[in-house]
């Protein structure tokens, strides 16, 4: 397969043929779909559609004026005794953390779940300098032990079974073959509790940055993010700049949508609204508070008015759960940490459309993602735009000649009805009559190539009608009238 192909990567097959994995992913996503459906049903949340529209408008407004809100946010964080650090990419983030750790003599970092730090491989970068940083979200912790990247934006270990976890714990923690999920969870709790109490620095992500408050908002169920941001002496929140919303009073809109869209919860167990280090008189909490604002390509996405909306994403994962393609191919077949429909939209924009040109094509354009997106990102439209960019790039690079020629030819034929009709009749003559009337299980070898072969690899083929509709229509007109 050439680098420029816009077709299925061969590695998909392995996932498609893994019956256990198929069942695990299909069941898990199906359950999440069901929970979301119940949580946004008209009888429990009549204002659901209105909330989506509001969320979209707030995100649009904030991002259209992002420079203003970045500066406002920064000013408010400063006023509360915290510090904002701008970083262009992952290496700047790692440099900042390493420098701070060195200055403060920090040895151990606890981390709560953050897709942004996954995006920049922060753990690996820190480990490279012998600074231990431990993931504390249960799923992320398991994946860190197993050296895997998240399978899903909100349920990172969605593909693993209790038996997989037992093997990982046996190998990495020396715990003999524990397959009871509750006990596995408590083992992790025990290990991680000690880490929380020993750690010098806690690194969290952020679900939202609130400009008018200078606050970082974190949403979670386990309590590990609370521990990460409360127990260590230093709290660093690493967030993409696009996480900004204008006002604290905008939060209810997003909080009502996020938990429901992700797991069907009206609110997740913990919602933390953090603005600066421990204040005068407060008994506990970090003494130092930093917010790292990451660009890493986001300014490039901002520049495109239409595609800017892909930055509205609040990482609820609903588009993954509802995507029939994600449900078949899973999270690890996507080229980057962001998988599913939103991954197919943002990855090409961050990495360049030429890197994995097949990605925007890995969709049947069914639109389920757009239907469930809590901030109304028109994902199918963005995929179509990206497809067009891919074909343009390929034309420029003089690649994909056969397909382009085929479509040019096709378009020409479609503008010439007589030729179209003639070609239709000629094609029909090529196809023999099959066993099922009108349906072919195979075609002669000389025809079993290209798209026909691909079609037949999965399903039977309709035999072209010996008389097209227009031919029927002509005789119908003559006979009836």
């Amino acid at each position, binding site marked *: 397969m050439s680098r420029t192909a816009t077709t299925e990567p061969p590695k998909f097959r392995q996932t498609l043929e893994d019956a256990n994995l198929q069942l*695990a992913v299909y*069941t*898990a996503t199906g*359950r999440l779909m069901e929970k979301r459906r119940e949580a946004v049903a008209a009888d429990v949340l009549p204002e659901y559609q209105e909330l989506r529209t*509001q969320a979209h408008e*707030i995100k649009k*407004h*904030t991002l259209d*004026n992002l*420079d*203003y809100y*970045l500066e406002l946010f920064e000013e408010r964080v400063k006023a509360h005794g915290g510090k904002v650090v*701008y970083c*262009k990419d992952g290496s*700047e983030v790692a440099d900042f953390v390493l420098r701070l750790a060195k200055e403060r003599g920090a040895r151990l970092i606890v981390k709560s779940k953050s897709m942004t730090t996954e995006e920049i491989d922060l753990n690996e970068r820190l480990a490279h300098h012998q600074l231990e940083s431990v993931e504390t979200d*249960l799923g992320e912790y*398991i994946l860190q032990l197993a050296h895997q990247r998240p399978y899903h934006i909100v*349920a*990172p*270990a969605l593909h*693993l*079974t*209790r038996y997989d976890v037992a093997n990982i714990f046996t190998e990495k923690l020396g715990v003999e073959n524990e397959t009871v*999920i509750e006990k596995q*969870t408590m083992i992790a709790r025990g290990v991680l509790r000690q880490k929380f*109490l020993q750690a010098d620095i806690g690194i969290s992500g952020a679900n939202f940055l*609130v400009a008018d*408050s200078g606050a970082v908002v974190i949403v979670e169920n*386990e*309590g590990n993010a*609370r*521990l990460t941001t*409360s*127990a260590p002496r230093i709290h660093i929140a690493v967030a993409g700049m696009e996480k900004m919303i204008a*006002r604290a*009073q*905008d*939060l*209810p*809109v997003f*909080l*009502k949508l996020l938990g429901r869209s992700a797991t069907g*919860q*009206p*609110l997740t*167990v*913990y*919602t*933390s*609204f953090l603005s*600066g280090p*421990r*204040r005068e*008189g*407060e*008994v*506990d909490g970090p003494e130092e508070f930093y917010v790292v604002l990451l660009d890493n390509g986001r*300014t490039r996405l*901002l*520049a495109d008015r239409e595609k800017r909306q892909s930055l509205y994403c609040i990482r609820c994962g609903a588009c993954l759960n509802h995507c029939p393609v994600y449900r078949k191919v899973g999270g690890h077949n996507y080229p980057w940490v962001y998988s599913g429909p939103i991954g197919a939209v943002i990855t090409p924009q961050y990495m360049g459309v030429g890197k994995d040109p097949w990605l925007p094509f890995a969709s049947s354009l069914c639109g389920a993602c757009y239907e469930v997106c809590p901030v109304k990102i028109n994902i199918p439209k963005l995929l179509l735009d990206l497809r067009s960019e891919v074909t343009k790039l390929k034309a420029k690079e003089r690649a994909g000649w056969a397909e382009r020629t085929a479509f040019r030819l096709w378009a020409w034929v479609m503008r010439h009805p007589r030729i179209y009709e003639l070609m239709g009749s000629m094609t029909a003559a090529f196809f023999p009559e099959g066993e099922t009337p009108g349906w072919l299980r195979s075609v002669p070898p000389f025809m079993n190539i290209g798209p026909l072969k691909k079609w037949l690899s999965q399903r039977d083929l309709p035999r072209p009608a010996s008389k097209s509709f227009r031919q029927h229509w002509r005789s119908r007109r003559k006979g009836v009238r």
Partner: protein
Amino acid sequence: MPREKILHKVRTALGRSSGQLPATPPPVRLRIPEVPLDARIESFTCALNKLNGKTCVAHSPQEALDYAAQLCEGKRVVASNSPVLRECGITGLPNVRSNYTDAEKLREACAAADVGITSADYALGDTGSLVMIASPREARLISLLPPVHLAIVPRSRILTGLDELFTLLPNPAEQTSSMVLITGPSRTADIEQILVRGVHGPREIHVVVL
């Protein structure tokens, strides 16, 4: 300086200039339904019970104290500095330690405790959430480290929901460095989507509405 560079890139991308004010933001639409106190209490306890939280509506400080005393019997307990707890007599229970002002000591006590007792600044009727605002009265770790969390919440503090909370506190950062909403016991479903409670935070949450 990455700061200037990044802000410049953002402005260029958006076609804006330095110091330019934003367009008018979309209106804030917070809606507070009229719900009588009894119904708010009912809704709060219902929602929290559904999440496996335990609730008790106490009609006197003595009832709250009884609940706390029973829950804490034979346990190591840390209580916050909230006057509500003192007024109920909870801080006077023999096994309850309170009045921490030093972070290090509080942390050690919480890490060793079986039960943490706090008040809550507000509670949300529709979701069964507690609103914990860090202050000299309320520390963060008491509701987080011990495996059991008990909160005594004055009934007048039960709001309808998020919209009312953010109407009362249009900018929580003005009064605290940390506001946390707690909605039920700590939980995870990261392995096979099987629900397990008490993964990092408390596995039990008890709320006495006073």
